[in-house]
């Protein structure tokens, strides 16, 4: 008999990591929506998930698709505004590494996704490649390039703070 954990257990184990991932690839409000959409989709599909599946990789794959959906919807809904805010809207200042978040937001999509899914979600490059497409080597290169850029921009931010 396949022994599948109650879904509540899945949320307990992976909820925080998936929220970090969503926040690293989206703005704060959108990230909360992406988290909800991800777990709702996962709940729907959960009974059919093979018992030996890598749950973390499965959730990141869903979160990746939801983030893309939300980004596209936001882009479609975007209207020109007179005042451009200094920071991406929704990044609150209380419990987040703002500089890192901003630096991440500045990366090309592929690099940002590779960095977040490998370093933040802890997926091996093989799994990262399955999520974002391409080969494991390409995912590794994208992550390395992303980290190199982050190190430059993030370090200069740290220096400015003095």
């Amino acid at each position, binding site marked *: 008999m396949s022994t599948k954990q109650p879904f509540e*257990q899945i949320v307990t184990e992976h909820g925080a990591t998936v929220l970090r991932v969503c926040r690293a690839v989206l703005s704060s409000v959108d990230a909360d929506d992406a988290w909800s959409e991800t777990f709702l989709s996962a709940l729907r599909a959960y009974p059919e998930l093979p018992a030996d599946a890598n749950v973390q990789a499965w959730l990141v794959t869903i979160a990746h698709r939801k983030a893309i959906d939300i980004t596209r919807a936001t882009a479609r809904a975007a209207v020109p505004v007179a005042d451009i805010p200094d920071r991406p809207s929704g990044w609150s200042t209380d419990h987040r590494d703002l500089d890192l978040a901003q630096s991440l937001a500045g990366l090309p999509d592929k690099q940002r996704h590779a960095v977040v899914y490998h370093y933040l979600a802890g997926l091996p490059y093989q799994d990262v490649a399955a999520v974002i497409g391409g080969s494991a080597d390409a995912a590794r290169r994208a992550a390395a390039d992303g980290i190199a850029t982050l190190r430059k921009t993030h370090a200069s931010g740290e220096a400015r703070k003095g």
Partner: protein
Amino acid sequence: MTTSTEGDGTDMFANLPPIGDTELQALRDRLAARAEATDLLDVAYRTIDTPVGTLLLAATPRGLVRIAYDREGLDTVLSGLAAKLSPRILSSPRRLDTAARQIEEYFAGRRHQFDLPLDFSLSTGFRRLVLDALPDIGYGHTASYGAIAAAVGNPKAVRAVGTACATNPLPLVVPCHRVVRSNGVIGPYLGGTEAKKLLLNLEAAA
């Protein structure tokens, strides 16, 4: 940053502040509400504190499906529900508000009968037959295993009645605690003999 090598970015994320419990809980509550609204919440559960210890309450959309005592192990019970009913299980108190309130009233001595939709999916055959007969034992009364066996038309099935009581998925609400040995000994109970004694004393006092 001097310890890291080129290409390793682990340190960049090492100092991220933790995700707050409150913000994650708010998201989890919203998930449970949306799951309920979209018919994806196959089993909702919560725990309540009572004079017989912590109780787990679980309900399907059809009704209360499981009450479990602490000693049965919350994780074990939930895993069992995942295997037997559905793994789409979330902690979601709302569906169990009425059950929780009625159980609270019962322990306060204000309620002698439960009025709740029950889902008997976890019981079949003879066991189900026995459970159906138990509510006929009124509040404050007891019956012997033999009497229940006779009541369901199988007087020799005393042991099977014992098994049906011992595997009652809805103790308390389906009153297997009112079934005692014919010599007056309280007998075993899935919540423990102490719990059974407490329930019978509570009912006798009213």
